[in-house]
């Protein structure tokens, strides 16, 4: 590992007992743990980056005879697989984080929303849950965890669509506000957190806020688990300090011929080689839910963009027009430019359309198509045209 990239061993480290951490933290004052989380600077690792401590605080303050904790294990963003590895390697830590959240906000019930594509891990996960339930009993903690399966819809990773789906409906995102922390599952205050975020909450309970934020930057505290794939000799899951320069990342993980890196999956940004030096990976630069896909000079960026747009056309829930029609038009649009049915000036119109989608779409899916679309069309115009 180069000196500029700092590898961290926190999420997967096995030299701590998560049951002990949980038992110890249960005895502490709830508000002071929330303050610790806020001080740590931990932001959600599922993509949107909302401060976790604040989310828990709102849910704790919210009125409700019942509250819920949901672990978002829908992991549908192209190029991510880190939650899969976390759930396989350290399920107890995820469950511990859920229980901790339940204790803090006053929820007795937690759910793991596991994507249908991961049904193969359901049995092992259930075993880990059963074992954890016994530990909760010993600790006199009234908390019960259930698995709910997804059924192959990417948009169900969006927290309100996920809740709709858990309520037995089409997974169509709701308007926000209200946010789930005040009105969530069954209309009750609900914390929805990513798998990785939940593990970090437990680790912060263990190591404390100062040690957690001794890594990273002011805007991007701590470390993060990255899913690295594509043209790299060493694909896999790596926990790295946040705030690294993309050029250092590429030096470490590239194949020597990296042309572009897609940061944050199909919903993220495509960064071309000439910008590697000025790009910081983190909330102050380009944030990512963890997906880092590397492309070398043999790859056609037209094919890459076409693949993403196909994905969005299929996965748009169709509820709002800008996204439903926009995704299709963008796809047809680049096909028309490629086949010379339209000239290159049409690309500017398509960029305007993607910007409209960004402002007018109801949820993050439609809003973020512009990220990859504009960055690829602007940086690789010639590849789109010829």
């Amino acid at each position, binding site marked *: 590992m180069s000196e500029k990239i700092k590898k961290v061993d926190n999420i997967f480290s096995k030299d701590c007992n998560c049951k002990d951490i949980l038992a110890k933290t249960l005895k502490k004052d709830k508000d002071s743990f929330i303050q610790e989380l806020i001080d740590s600077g931990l932001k959600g690792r599922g993509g949107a980056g909302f401060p976790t401590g604040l989310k828990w605080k709102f849910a704790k303050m919210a009125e409700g005879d019942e509250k819920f904790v949901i672990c978002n294990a829908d*992991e*549908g*963003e*192209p*190029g*991510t*697989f880190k939650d*899969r590895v976390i759930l396989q390697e350290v399920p107890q830590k995820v469950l511990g984080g859920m229980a901790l959240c339940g204790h803090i906000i006053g929820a007795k019930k937690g759910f793991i929303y596991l*994507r*249908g*594509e*991961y*049904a*193969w891990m359901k049995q092992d996960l259930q075993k880990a849950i059963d074992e954890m339930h016994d530990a909760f009993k010993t600790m006199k903690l009234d908390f019960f965890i259930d698995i*709910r*399966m997804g*059924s*192959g*819809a*990417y948009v169900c990773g969006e927290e309100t669509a996920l809740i709709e*789906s*858990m*309520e*037995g*409906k*089409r*997974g*169509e995102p709701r308007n926000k506000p209200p946010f789930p922390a005040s009105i969530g599952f069954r209309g009750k205050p609900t914390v929805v957190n990513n798998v990785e975020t939940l593990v970090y909450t437990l680790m912060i309970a263990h190591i404390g806020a100062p040690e957690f934020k001794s890594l990273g930057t002011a805007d991007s505290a701590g470390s993060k688990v990255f*899913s*690295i*794939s*594509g*043209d790299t000799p060493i*694909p*896999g*899951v790596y926990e790295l300090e946040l705030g690294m320069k993309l050029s250092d990342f590429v030096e470490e993980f590239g194949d020597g011929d990296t042309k572009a890196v897609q940061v944050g999956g199909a919903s993220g940004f495509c960064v071309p080689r000439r910008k590697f030096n000025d790009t910081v990976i983190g909330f102050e630069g380009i944030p990512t839910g963890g*997906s880092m*896909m590397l492309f070398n000079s043999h*790859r056609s960026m037209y*094919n*890459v963009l076409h*693949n*993403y747009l196909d*994905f969005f056309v*299929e*996965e748009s*829930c169709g509820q709002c027009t800008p996204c439903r029609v926009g995704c299709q038009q963008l796809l047809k649009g680049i096909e028309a430019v490629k086949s010379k049915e339209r000239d290159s000036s049409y690309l500017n119109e398509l960029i305007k359309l993607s910007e409209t989608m960004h402002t007018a779409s109801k949820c993050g899916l439609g809003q973020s198509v512009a990220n990859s679309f504009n960055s690829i069309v602007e940086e690789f115009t010639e590849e789109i045209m010829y």
Partner: protein
Amino acid sequence: MIQTKTIVQELVKKHGNNRESLIPVLQGIVEKNNYITDEDIIEIANTLDISAGEIYGTTSFYTFLDTEKRGKYVIRVCKSIIAVMKGKAEIIKTIENILNIKVGETTPDNKFSLLEANDIGWSDKEPSMLINEKVYTELTPEKTTEIIESYLRD
């Protein structure tokens, strides 16, 4: 195929008689029969007291809650950009040749359906595929042939 009425009743007993159990019930049917029939939908509508149209609307939203007739083994090959880069096309071709069907089709004996899927979460080990709930990764044409043949013998 297990009798509609029995399987729906069993699933409802397991998951509860309310709206929230709709998806788990539908998932249970797919687990057993690989797709959902009109009969299933009507039976669920009567049992859970939800309109059949509403159930159909919910079902049609989810890729895995298939209402099209599917084979005993549903093969879903990942078609993410990383899968494409790592040789997905060859895997599809291999399966098409062995089973003599195209993507989207089912073999005449109803044993296999061949489909493509969006990212199934294995970009570190593409090409990959699901056969029902089982996952296979780092596929080569040879490895794929072996896997499909083992199902053929089944």
